[in-house]
């Protein structure tokens, strides 16, 4: 896209001065610890016992660990379930709150509350609501559908967790879309309206192309977050990951194997490395799709 301004009135080191604080913090507290994770992934280190170099044993063990494949499956399903919803629903919501009708600021703020509330609180509330005797099931029973085991069935649990993720993310992505929509020239809509295009046609032929790059951004952010999902599933399915651990996600597995006084730090590090590699690949995939679309 744009090229940086040619700058002569600039001391040679000033870009580094600008970037230094950020680099320092990220380097010391994110990248450096991750290097030690990388190194640990080749050892059999435990929380309180130093490890020995074991070559690729941890990675070989991964391949034979059923729980790893369960985790990979669930984290992948999470992307498939959550990302389309988070790309589309917040856009519709943004269109809904875009017009300055009376009271709209109230609605915008209210829609944003799930984003600001801590995930622990959110998890507590939803477990409370979706419980077999909770509010939702009481409603379903009065309507005549009967009670649904949102928190006991393997798939419903995963689905419920996804719903909470979407619910909590709606407001956040809504804002991102609002910003993008503000940049869509009014004339485009008006021209389309004059051409006799209905709201659906206008949405597909004017709005969507105009916010396409934002949709890609949302897809990228939400898919990385979805793949690394931990809290929602942990809070709803419990620490052991639902019935028979079938709802375990990869990051839950990292947490479960690696933490506590008896944690297998080496093996958990290997899992972390896999998570990292997959998210990097995901990011590249989305960005590449974006570039191809653009050209």
């Amino acid at each position, binding site marked *: 896209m744009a090229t940086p301004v040619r700058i002569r009135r600039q001391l040679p080191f000033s870009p580094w001065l600008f970037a230094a604080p950020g680099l320092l913090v990220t380097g010391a507290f*994110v990248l450096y610890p*991750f290097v030690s994770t990388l190194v640990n992934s080749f050892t059999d280190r435990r929380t309180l016992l130093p490890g020995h170099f074991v070559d690729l044993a941890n990675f070989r063990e991964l391949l034979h660990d059923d729980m790893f494949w369960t985790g990979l499956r669930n984290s992948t399903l999470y992307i498939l379930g959550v990302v389309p919803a988070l790309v589309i629903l917040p856009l519709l919501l943004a269109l809904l709150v875009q017009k300055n009708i009376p009271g709209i600021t109230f609605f915008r703020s209210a829609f*944003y509350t799930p984003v600001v509330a801590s995930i622990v609180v959110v998890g507590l509330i939803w477990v409370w609501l979706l419980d077999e*005797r909770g509010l939702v099931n009481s409603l379903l029973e009065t309507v005549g559908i009967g009670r649904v085991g949102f928190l006991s069935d393997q798939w419903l649990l995963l689905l419920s967790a996804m719903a909470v993720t979407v619910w909590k993310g709606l407001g956040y992505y809504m804002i991102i879309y609002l910003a993008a929509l503000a940049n869509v020239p009014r004339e485009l809509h008006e021209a389309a309206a004059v051409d006799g295009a209905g709201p659906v046609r206008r949405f597909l032929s004017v709005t969507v192309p105009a916010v396409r790059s934002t949709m890609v951004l949302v897809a990228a952010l939400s898919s990385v977050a979805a793949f690394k999902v931990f809290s929602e599933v942990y809070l709803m399915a419990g620490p052991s990951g639902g019935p028979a651990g079938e709802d375990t996600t990869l990051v839950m597995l990292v947490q479960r194997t690696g933490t506590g006084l008896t944690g297998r730090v080496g093996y958990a590090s290997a899992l*972390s490395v896999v998570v990292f590699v997959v998210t990097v690949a995901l990011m590249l995939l989305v960005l590449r799709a974006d570039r191809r679309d653009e050209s």
Partner: protein
Amino acid sequence: MSVLEKVRPEPPVTVRKEPRVTDEHGRRIHVGELVWRYLLLLVVLALTVGPFLWQLSTSLKGPTEDIYSSPPSFLPARPTLHNYTRVADTIPVWDYALNSLKVATANVVTNCVGSALAGYALARLRFRGRRVTTLAFVLAMLVPVEGIVIAQFTTMRELGLNNTLIGVVLPGAIGAMNVLLMRNAFRNLPYEIEEAAYVDGADVWQRFLRVALPSVKGTLAVVAIFAFMGAWDDFLWPLIVLSDPSKFTLTIGLNYLHGTFANDERLVAAGTVIAVAPLIALFACLQRYFFRGVGEGAVKG
């Protein structure tokens, strides 16, 4: 979700009245459209805010009320603020809140300043290693934090910063994600403004402070809210890095309400309301600015 389907907006009945409501472009909005818009807004409102009201209601229920009755009763029979005073009696909730406020405020300042600076460098300044630096931030954003907490603690201890509030703030002080958000915001600014300043003889700091920064207020607001939220809600890291209870933050403090020997649901509910309320209040205060700022087009891919 089923609720959404059930409450499909009905076709408007009366469209006679002269509509006086206009949108931001001064165009009139038809009453029919207005009705279904409000209907939809109310449905979404119930879905997003309802669960919090439920929690609020539980926290207001008195000691004689059966909170486990089935079907659950939504409104407290005799609302009382007693549970809130009990929270304050059980734990020094104001001290914890003050610590949280310090940590969250510091986090907002460092993130806004740090990521604006770095984002500007990445977007607008030309230097060797720019691509590598960008890559470093992208990779940092992707690192799964669950795997590095203990290593972070070791680093912090080597710096002698464990058991300090600075130690709580530092690892998230300049989030990689925020840096990238700011970079995108700066990149989307038209070059012409800065070029004018450049011609006027402004140096890089002046252009940054006087020209570029004021144009990305919206993204700064996003960064600020997220920095505040992140610090306010974090549990595991402050727990690990702090040992002295007098330095505990609110999320840790509120965890004491989950008693070893007995759990009091009303107390927990009151605690969660205390934890969420400041965030909602903060957001309500900033929201006007926040939405306007965001509308400036700062957050864009």
